[in-house]
Structures are given as structure tokens and as C-alpha cells.
């Protein structure tokens, strides 16, 4: 009976009820679209960055800088130590016994693969064009095991590094900037004095602009020669079974080897912070929309209570309790929330699909054809639960107020 009365009351104010339902629908729709868009961007960035660069990187330097000699001698923290004429020591940094370390790492639980790397900067020249690049010297089979770079090739083959003398694979942006194609020869020079001519054997595109516009791959031995780092390994790239566990595994590795070991989360901390802020803003905006919708629900229910004081009195006179009256109004909020949420979820799903198909060429931090829309069931659940909670919360006050009316006072007032 309570449902019967609730539904009839809602239908009697169909237009206002529809406006309230529309308010909830729009809030849910906006939440789904915005979170899908933001999450899509975040996912794309994280996945592409993580998968093309490895989950964990062991660097050739200790986490803590060694205590300087003067600070060892003068341990007073308040002392001002000034040195004149200091020159940096020419120190060759490298990971000691990288083969042994990699063997140890491969035996650790949670680690799938480890690959050696020598990295450094170089200048690439093609004709009159010159461009600064990051050179990563790798063993192709091992690199493909720790990253997805092999799948990101848009021209050539990653394994050709092994079969081509002084071969180089360029990021899409680097190739585009220099205007080179497969089999073109580039002149490379490094700050360490190394020089070579490399043949383009492949072009990759990760979709992450900073990577595609700076990174290049060479065979490990070729890169060691170019960067003047003979037999030196200065990074080890690691792939884990579950990339979300990278932070924990990185700290374990660091404890074992003593080298600074960065998880992808640590390496991209600034971006992750921005994504967190972005998520907070999304929640804030959609939350504000939902609050506005909730005020709509509150408003229509209060109006409904005020204009049905006589109904409440007569319902009580023939036996409805305070609880029954509360439920009649609470159910109205529930129906508005339920319909608004379900329609919002449906429209949200359609909007996500529609936006995904929009023919847009996007290029920013990440490059994509069409909007990057991610769909996680948790977002739909959050939208539904949030909308239901807030609309039901909005129904509490009118429902309680309706239940408080004293039928005798109402009937006396009507006389």
C-alpha cells in the first residue's frame, strides 16, 4: 500500500518528478562520462608508460648520497661549511656485476624478467636537421621480455637491432622531427665524444608523447661504444607479474642490491599526483551536480508534504502509523533515485561508447585517435550507490516531517 500511494503521488506531479529524475540522471551521466574520460587518460598514460619502460628500474647510483668528507669531520649540524674551488670528480657510474644481479632478480618472487641497459644522451643529425635524443642500449630479446616495445613498432622490426650493424630504432616523434624513414642513415654523436652513423631499422609509437619524441633504441654494444661506456650497464629494467605491486618489489630489490631502484609509480610520481588531483576535481564537480539534484528531490518532496497535510491526517486516522507515512515519502525519494540512477547508467554507457567513436586526433601528453574512455564497473557502482545515497538522504527530512503531523491538529485546522 505504501508503494501504491508513493507511486501515485509521484505520478500526480509527473513533470516535477521527471525534472528530479532528470537531475539525478544528468549527475550520474556526468559522473560516468567524466570519470571514464579521466580514467581513460590516466590508464592510457600509465599502461603505455609502464609497459614501454618496464615496471621497475635499477639505477647505477645509491639511494642516499654518501656523506661528504667535511660533514664527516664536522658533525655539528649548526656549523656552516664552505668550500672553495671544488671540482667534481670524474666518476664512472655503473652497476657492478650486472649479470649476477640480474640472475638474483630473476629468482625473486613476483619478477618475470630483467634486462640490462646502458642509457645516455646523444645528438642525431640527418641532413641539416639536428635533434637531441635519449639512447637506450639494449639486448633486443631481453628488452622485449620486460617491455611491450616489440608490439609498438609501426615500421621495421625490433629484432633487426641484432642483425644490423649500428642499427637504430626511433620513436615516432624523433623520426617525424628528423624526417627519416627506414634504412636512412643518421649521424650520432654523444657528449662523451662517441660518434657513429646508424641505420634506421625501425620506428615505434607508444602513444606517450615524451617517450615517442625522445627515445631511441640501439644494440647494447653499439650504444656502449657511442656513449663511451664500454662494458658498462647503468640500468636494469624489470618486469613484474603485477605492475601494481612494483613499489613493494622495488623496495625489496633496493634492500638487496643497494642501488636506487625506482618503481614506475615513483618515476611518474608527479603525473600520478596530477591524476589524483584530477580525480578529486571530477568527484567534486559531479558530487556538486548530485547535491543540486538532491536539493531538487528535497524540494519536490517538501512541496508534496505541504500540500498533502490533509492526506497525511486521513491516512493516519484510518490506521497508518508514523513509520508508514515516513516510508511513503522515503519510497518517493527511492524511486526518483532508482530511476534517475538507472537511466543515468544507461545513458552514461551510451555516451561513453559514442565519445569513444568520435573521430578526434588527440595529441598532448598522450597521443590517441579518439577520446580515451575507460570503463571500470567500479565507476558505475560508485555512480549508482552515490546517487541512491544522496537522493535517499534528501528524502529523509520530508519523510520525517510528514510523519510528525498530528492528524487532530490538521483536522481542527481545516474546520
Amino acid at each position, binding site marked *: 500500500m505504501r508503494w501504491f500511494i508513493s507511486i501515485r503521488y509521484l505520478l500526480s506531479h509527473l513533470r516535477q518528478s521527471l525534472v528530479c529524475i532528470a537531475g539525478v540522471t544528468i549527475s550520474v551521466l556526468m559522473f560516468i562520462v567524466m570519470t571514464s574520460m579521466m580514467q581513460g587518460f590516466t590508464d592510457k598514460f600509465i599502461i603505455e608508460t609502464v609497459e614501454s619502460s618496464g615496471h621497475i628500474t635499477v639505477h647505477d647510483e645509491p639511494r642516499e648520497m654518501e656523506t661528504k668528507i667535511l660533514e664527516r669531520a664536522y658533525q655539528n649540524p649548526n656549523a656552516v661549511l664552505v668550500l672553495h674551488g671544488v671540482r667534481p670528480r670524474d666518476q664512472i657510474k655503473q652497476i657492478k656485476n650486472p649479470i649476477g644481479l640480474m640472475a638474483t632478480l630473476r629468482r625473486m618472487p613476483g619478477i618475470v624478467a630483467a634486462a640490462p641497459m646502458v642509457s645516455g644522451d646523444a645528438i642525431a643529425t640527418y641532413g641539416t636537421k639536428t635533434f637531441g635524443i635519449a639512447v637506450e642500449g639494449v639486448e633486443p630479446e631481453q628488452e622485449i621480455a620486460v617491455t611491450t616495445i616489440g608490439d609498438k613498432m609501426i615500421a621495421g622490426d625490433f629484432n633487426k637491432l641484432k642483425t644490423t650493424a649500428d642499427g637504430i630504432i626511433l620513436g615516432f616523434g624523433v623520426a617525424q622531427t628528423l624526417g627519416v624513414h627506414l634504412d636512412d642513415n643518421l649521424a650520432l654523436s654523444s657528449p662523451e665524444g662517441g660518434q657513429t652513423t646508424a641505420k634506421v631499422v625501425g620506428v615505434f609509437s607508444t602513444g606517450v608523447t615524451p617517450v615517442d619524441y625522445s627515445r631511441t633504441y640501439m644494440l647494447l654494444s653499439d650504444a656502449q661504444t657511442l656513449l663511451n661506456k664500454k662494458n658498462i650497464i647503468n640500468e636494469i629494467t624489470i618486469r613484474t607479474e603485477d605492475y601494481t605491486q612494483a613499489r613493494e618489489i622495488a623496495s625489496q630489490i633496493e634492500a638487496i642490491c643497494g642501488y636506487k631502484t625506482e618503481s614506475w609509480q615513483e618515476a611518474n610520481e608527479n603525473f600520478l599526483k596530477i591524476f589524483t588531483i584530477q580525480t578529486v576535481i571530477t568527484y567534486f564537480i559531479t558530487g556538486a551536480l548530485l547535491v543540486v539534484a538532491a536539493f531538487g528531490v528535497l524540494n519536490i518532496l517538501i512541496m508534496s508534504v505541504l500540500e498533502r497535510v490533509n492526506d497525511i491526517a486521513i491516512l493516519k486516522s484510518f490506521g*497508518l502509523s508514523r513509520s508508514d507515512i515516513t516510508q511513503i515519502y522515503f519510497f518517493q525519494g527511492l524511486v526518483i533515485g532508482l530511476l534517475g540512477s538507472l537511466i543515468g547508467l544507461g545513458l552514461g554507457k551510451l555516451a561513453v561508447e559514442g565519445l569513444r567513436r568520435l573521430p578526434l586526433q588527440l595529441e598532448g601528453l598522450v597521443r590517441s585517435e579518439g577520446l580515451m574512455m575507460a570503463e571500470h564497473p567500479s565507476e558505475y557502482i560508485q555512480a549508482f550507490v552515490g546517487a541512491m545515497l544522496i537522493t535517499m538522504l534528501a528524502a529523509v527530512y520530508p519523510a520525517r516531517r510528514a510523519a510528525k503531523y498530528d492528524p*487532530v491538529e490538521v483536522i481542527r485546522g*481545516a474546520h
Partner: protein
Amino acid sequence: MARIDYLSQPGTQVRGSSEEAPLLRAQNVHRILGSADTATHILKGVDLSIHRSEYVSIVGASGSGKSTLLYLLGGLDRPTQRDVDQTEFAPPSRIFIDAQDTTQLNDQSLALLRNEKIGFVFQFHYLLKEFTAQENVCLPMFKLGRLSKSDAMDRAAMLLKRLGLAEKIKRRANRLSGGEQQRVAIARALANEPAALLADEPTGNLDRHNGEVVADIFHELAAGNQTIVMVTHDTTMARRARRMITMEDGRITHDEAVTTESLK
């Protein structure tokens, strides 16, 4: 209009005699509205017993407390237990409905008791305008839950037919005339076969013709052994009852059987 043969379903209990426990009993009933300086003592120690099958009218000037007494007898209001100076009334101010002390019941139980035993008719019909006449009559039955939805709809249709509204069953309450609305309100009050039908100025809002129609309905219901307590200003209608109670300043001043002699 055809005689209303007590609008009951098979198995309706036989109405009792005056030796039985009263159906409605007021014991030293006080009702004070407001508090401290603004307190108004509406009822000042009313004692009253109403037995099954009685047809009682309560008359009195405005403000004499007759409507307040009616609401208390029907469990819609609760008697005041303490005087303004906080002394407890002795004997305690109590209302009994079918021997149940309403002061011992919580709101939920009292509401259920009202639903089962009492039918109210007010001066204004108080129909729910979004519902049809039939649905309005069904509401108390839906609450009681004794009948299935279809049985409740059938009974509502039967009640409305007997009250001369056969053609208006599916009509929205706000599309009915004043007299028709009041008849729907009477049908709603009778929906759960209440032990007592309590009416507060049931003809107060009606024109002469419709007032007479409603008065006839009450008369016929009383003839069918329906217990009726009616508050009215209409002396003609009051004298159609079998017992007439007169109230003045919160007290019962006369309680008399209405005889053919007294009608003269």
C-alpha cells in the same frame, strides 16, 4: 435508497447487548491543549460508555469539547494524564477501545487498533484526490491486509454501489460532487467493518439534500446494528440517534435516550 443491510461480509459477529463490556469507554478523560499559561482545559473529566450497536449523537456548543471527545474515543488523540500543576488525575484519565486501554499502546499499536476497529468520517471528506473512489475505499483494507487486492477492490465496489455510487467507482475523487465525496468517505470508514463508526459533523459541509442522504445512510447503518457515534450541530440529525449526549464546557451535561416522546 435501498436499505443498507449492514455492509458486512459473511461471518460478521453478532452485536452485543448493553451488559457486555462497553465498546468505547472514557474514564475521567481530561484533555488539556498547550501548557502553562496558554493551557486550555478542553475536557474536564468525562466518563462515558458506548456499547455495541448504539447510535449516539453528541451535541453542544462550539468549543464544548465534543469533537475532542470523539477523537479520543477513536484513538486518534490521547487523553492528558496530568493537570497543569502536574498532579495526576484520579482516577487516571483513560480511553478503552474494545476493552483495550489505549494509554498502554504505542503509536504503532494504536494505529493498528484504529485501522481494525474504528472508522472515521469528518466534516470534510479528506479523500486522496489522486485516487479513484474505489481506491480511496480500498486504502484502509490494504493497510489491514486481510483481503487480497482484488477482494478489497470488489468489496470497495460493493460498498460504493450500496451507497448509490455504482457509476462513480472509477472516477477520481476530485471529480465527484460534495455529497458523493462524503459518501465515498463513509464507504472508506466502513471498509474494514469497524466496530465503531465515528463521525464528526458528517453533514456540516453538505447542502440540505445531500445532508439528508447522509443522515439516511447513518440511520440505515444504525438499523443494521452498526455502532455509531456522531458529533453534530444539526439537532434534527442528532435526534435520529437513539442516545443523545449534550456537552458543555468540557463536561457531559445530559445523556438521554432519544424516544418518540422526546422527539415531540
